[in-house]
């Protein structure tokens, strides 16, 4: 899978109008003669065939060398590591919050199906599900940063401050709005799916039977609902790693939050090929891990899947 993704993105990039030499030199273009440019191209192996370029790159990657970022002039792995930590905090908070609240809201709506509370939650989710992340981000910025002044407008830490002076509190303060935006959008999806599944479970034979046995209310939900509805919620939640990543790109852009999402946008716009490829590979890996985790949890929760595995 990783091979296919790297091949695909490599083809896309090598056919894009980005001239690596030009983007490397940047503003100094005027000062560099065509001969010098030729030399750089040769030094980088740009005159070789696309295939051999690709294999060079793959060989380097397999040795853990993703190349050097043209924008930051440091190894790509370092950029990813640094940016990913910032993004990870953001995504983890958003992911956790949206999963938790989505599940709770969905459960409430499902248990009270047809009530005004259910309609309210459902309506809320439909509105959110159709709200673009960046728009919500802008609204949040306007409301909380500009009007109320509770949170900073952007960046990951206060501007003009030395890195070692930035406190954890500062970082958290900068994290709140982007995380909030991301999780609010994420809630809708999980809540609606959880509600749907719970309604289904509540109409199942075993819940009808449980009611016939006199079980009701919360103990019914706890005993028979929770485990049965957690499966789709979990698969959705882990499969949403990809969406989360996409959402993070937008949210980080709106909030100028220095995460991986922002880095990939810059890399794309300014033709930083090694960084772009590196992040693409990394995010593919990230989504892959998400799906893998979902499978692992499935096995833990559902004995039927466990048993299937044993027969194989």
């Amino acid at each position: 899978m990783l091979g296919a993704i790297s091949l695909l993105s490599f083809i896309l990039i090598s056919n894009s109008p980005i001239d690596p030499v030009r983007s490397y030199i940047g503003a100094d273009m005027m000062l560099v003669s065509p001969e010098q440019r030729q030399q750089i191209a040769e030094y980088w192996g740009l005159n070789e065939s696309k295939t051999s370029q690709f294999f060079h790159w793959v060989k380097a990657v397999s040795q853990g060398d993703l190349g050097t970022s043209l924008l930051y002039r440091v190894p790509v792995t370092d950029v990813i590591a640094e940016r990913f930590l910032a993004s990870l905090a953001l995504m983890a908070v958003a992911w956790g919050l949206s999963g938790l609240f989505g599940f709770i809201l969905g459960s409430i709506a499902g248990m009270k199906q047809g009530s005004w509370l259910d309609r309210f939650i459902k309506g809320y989710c439909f509105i959110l599900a159709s709200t673009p992340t960046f728009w919500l981000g802008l609204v949040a910025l306007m409301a909380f940063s500009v009007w109320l002044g509770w949170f900073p407008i952007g960046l990951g830490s206060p501007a003009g401050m030395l890195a070692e002076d930035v406190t954890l509190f500062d970082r958290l303060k900068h994290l709140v709005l982007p995380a909030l935006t991301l999780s609010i959008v994420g809630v809708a999806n999980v809540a609606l799916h959880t509600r749907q599944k719970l309604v289904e479970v509540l109409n199942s034979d075993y819940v009808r039977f449980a009611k016939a046995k006199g079980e009701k209310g919360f103990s019914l939900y706890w005993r028979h609902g929770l485990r049965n509805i957690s499966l789709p919620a979990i698969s959705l939640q882990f499969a949403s790693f990809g969406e989360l990543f996409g959402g993070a790109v937008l949210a980080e852009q709106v909030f100028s939050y220095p995460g991986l999402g922002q880095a990939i946008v810059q890399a794309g716009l300014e033709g930083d090929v090694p960084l772009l490829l590196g992040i693409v590979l990394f995010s593919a890996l990230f989504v892959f891990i998400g799906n893998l985790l979902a499978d692992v949890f499935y096995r833990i929760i559902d004995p039927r899947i466990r048993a299937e595995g044993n027969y194989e």
Partner: protein
Amino acid sequence: MRINRASHKQEEGTHFRSSRLLEVTDFALSFTTYTGGLKETTEQAIKKLDMTIDTGEIVAVVGASGSGKSLLANAILGMLPANATVSGLIKYKGKALTLQDQVQLRGTEIAMIPQSVNSLDPLMKAGKQVRTMIKGKNKKEKQREIFAAVGLDEKVERNYPFQLSGGMARRVLIAIAMVSSAELIVADEPTPGLDEQALEDSIRPIRLLADQGKGVMFITHDIGTALRLADKIVVFNDGKTIETANVKDFYGKGEALRHPYTKQLWNALPQNGFHTP
């Protein structure tokens, strides 16, 4: 087998005094549905149903599929869909049941053996499903006792429903009814499609319940099984109870049976020559 059980019943009769458990009089049930937009139609599912169940008695309700038998079970437990309208009287221990009573009595006084084996929670082990219905201490021991009584191996308690055979799952469902303190058991078609051995294994514990003094309503379309198990047969057709007959009235060519439909049912059995009019 019938004769054996009849004498067995008499013996039991000396141990406890039989009393009226459930009395259904003039019971009718209809559904209101909207067809083609706003046109309201009422469908009469049960027109007139009368029956009684005494303690220690198994009363079979026999009727064709789709004759509204299962609705009766749900009506007694107060678990009808919202668009159902009922009339008539359901009395439990001499007291007319309200919906609140029914909710209250579910699982404590009235238990159900459901029709579908999917009624077991797919993600809970069989033993635990039985144990959650046990009140008080020593749950594990009680559950094992019950499992032995219905002929289930001890290791079955650690199995999930998907690991059980149809017959085993049925017996787990029966075990759940047995551990509850319920005095009235409503068994909704608990024995469909079982082979001879599994059938025998499933109806034995039901008989056991009645012998403990519980009243059992045994809903089925299979008159053969009903005759083996029950004390009384309520014949139900076209939304109405046609006849309540004692099991001992089913003999010969059905001379003791009053209603022609009951006679037809009896004579259509394989051992009676498949006679159809």
